[in-house]
């Protein structure tokens, strides 16, 4: 099944390898458009998409909006804070209201895992998950995979280390699900309080030291550490965290030659990643941002693109 046959993009867990490849392949020409002087093609003219963010994320939202605009879709943004939900309107009612405004695609960020799955069941619009709770962030996973493939020429069989708060990270989950479909060896590292129970059952190797995870790795993906986790007692202090888990230049000697460093941003410099690493020659962090727009263009194109919707009508 091709990804363009799907109604929604909710996560990489239930996406097939071929579907992921279709998205990544489609992102290649999209990246050309992003790099052009005139970044506009008429592909999605007359189509509407709306971003609905129940949790703040300027960069992901902007990335989706630009992706839509470059493809000539009409993009709109509904800023909903969690507090407005507490004022009374249910998610179902909010979505119904949006649906009546006519967009084909809703791009949703929500603090609760599974919220986009719930929405997808209750609307005829196509739903793109832009991050749900601690569950998945599929377009981030896809842009990470696109970036890795671009640099390594392949995904199959790579050794990938994911560092930081694995337990609460939707980026980690989407990466793990996606990369495992390509036979990657995925190691995760962080303090035991931030490593999920039974993660081995997924086929992922848990490590408590950076060194163990990084040894021989082709890719190092550093996650943002959230300071709230310290308040929750999951580690003693930010200082101790950075002493034990901050990625430093000397770590790179353990990695495979030509290893690359990713970070989904925004970075806490000096906490989970040193500035030398963030700005160093192995860092592909800025490229990830550009690739994010390209991958989102690919997803929008495949979900809203010409033929199928017209045929359906």
């Amino acid at each position, binding site marked *: 099944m091709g990804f363009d046959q799907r109604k929604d993009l909710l996560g990489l867990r239930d996406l097939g390898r071929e579907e992921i490849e279709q998205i990544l392949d489609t992102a290649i020409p999209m990246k050309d458009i992003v790099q052009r002087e005139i970044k506009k093609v008429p592909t999605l003219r007359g189509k509407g998409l709306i971003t609905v963010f129940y949790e703040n994320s300027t960069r992901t939202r902007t990335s989706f909006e630009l992706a839509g605009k470059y493809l000539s879709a009409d993009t709109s943004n509904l800023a909903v804070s969690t507090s407005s939900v507490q004022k009374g309107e249910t998610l179902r009612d909010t979505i119904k209201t949006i649906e009546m405004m006519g967009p084909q695609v809703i791009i949703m960020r929500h603090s*609760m895992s599974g*919220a986009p799955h719930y929405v997808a069941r209750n609307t005829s619009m196509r739903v793109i998950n832009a991050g749900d709770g601690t569950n998945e962030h599929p377009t981030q996973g896809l842009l990470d995979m696109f970036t890795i493939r671009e640099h390594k020429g392949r995904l199959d069989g790579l050794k990938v280390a994911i560092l930081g708060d694995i337990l609460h990270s939707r980026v980690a989950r989407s990466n793990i699900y996606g990369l495992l479909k390509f036979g990657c060896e995925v190691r995760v590292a962080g303090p035991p309080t931030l490593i999920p129970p039974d993660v081995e059952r997924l086929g992922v190797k848990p490590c408590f030291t950076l060194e163990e995870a990084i040894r021989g790795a082709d890719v190092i993906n550093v996650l943002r550490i959230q300071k709230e986790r310290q308040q929750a007692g999951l580690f003693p202090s930010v200082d101790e965290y950075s002493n034990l888990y901050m990625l430093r230049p000397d770590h790179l000697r353990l990695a495979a030659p030509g290893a690359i460093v990713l970070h989904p941003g925004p970075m806490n410099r000096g906490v989970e990643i040193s500035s030398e690493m963030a700005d160093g020659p192995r860092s592909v962090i800025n490229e990830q941002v550009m690739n994010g727009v390209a991958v989102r263009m690919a997803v929008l194109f495949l979900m809203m693109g010409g033929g199928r919707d017209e045929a359906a009508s």
Partner: protein
Amino acid sequence: MRLRVRDGRIIDPAHNVDSVADVLIEDGRIVGLEPATDPDRGSTQGDAQVIDATGKIVCPGFIDMHVHFRDPGYEYKEDIETGSRAAAAGGFTTVCCMPNTDPVIDNGAVASYVRKRAQDAGVIDVLPFGSITKRQAGEELSEMGELVRAGCVGFSDDGKPVMRADVMRNALSYSRIFNAPIISHCEDLNLTRDGQMHEGYYSFVFGLKGIPAEAEETMVARDLLLARLTGGRLHVCHVSTRGSLELIRRAKAEGIAVTCEVTPHHLTLTDEVVGSYDTNTKVNPPLRSEDHVQALRQALSEGLIDCIATDHAPHHLESKDCEYAAAAPGIAGLETAVAVIMDRLVHSGALDITKMVSLFTVGPARVLGLDRGTLSPGARADITIIDPDRVKRVNPETFNSKARNTPFAGMELRGWPWMTISEGRVVAHDGSVG
């Protein structure tokens, strides 16, 4: 008013009865059994109403010692009348309702209200539990004597576990005056905070905050030690983990006065079903992983578990039609319990039918110290008749409960309650009440 339930297979585990016979009822009491081989049977009962129970299983009325009827305070979810009707349809003739109402059942007036409303509804018998502490706040003991006088048969703070060990100690000690069980919802709230499902492989995969089995087990261990210290009667409700069972097994062997119950959903569903983010799978304690479910089944057939209870937790649609983390926990279980156990455990060979009947009758009666759960002459004529081969699909739209929240919706199950007789009156027949 006479009634003859004819030619059914009588299973009365309290007296090791398993034979085809007639049950004779007069004025709401059991008169006795008359063997099908008796040539004179029926000759003196010409004026009795006869119910042909051929091919059916005739049991003492089922008792569910753990339901939530939401009345007073949350009648939009369920009230005592609709809850009673759901119970009757599900084959239950006695239920015990939890005190987490508004106001809390922490005084005689509220307990009397519950008794009165149940009597007015006139369907089945509802026995309330009083709260252990005033307002279920976990600080000061309720007036247990007044609650017992008003009809309470046990004490529980239900979903609000008594976190203070000293308060729990005093409750177990003080309740000895009444020989009433302290029913403990074992959960260390510090370990479950914000948890949405069982902690394990699937909680990571679905990105939902986990609740470790140890959140239950540490409290089971604490309460068992306090029961030993005080000599009070402890009943652990909805046991859901292997470790809790091990603790209870050791405590029983040691002679500690402990009993426990398990729910149909914990016996038949695993945490894997949460993957749909169907809020009907959200329940407290959460659905556990396969190894825990197997341990529960094993303990059930070995006799470690005293009774099956539904933890019937009706919710309004709005509480479930939402994001998973926002959903209220609970399953409306009264109308599916018997069919789920019949289909998944009895017909699959995992549980003997006699054992099942005892878990729904004499088991809970003993926990509560009730003179029920048997067909002995003189007992209340509460009878549950099961059609073991009736196949039906679970359709929440036909529930007598106000609630529709069930993860069993759409499942085809074999073996359903066929008739419920409460104090000699037929109150439900094939799912219809009245």
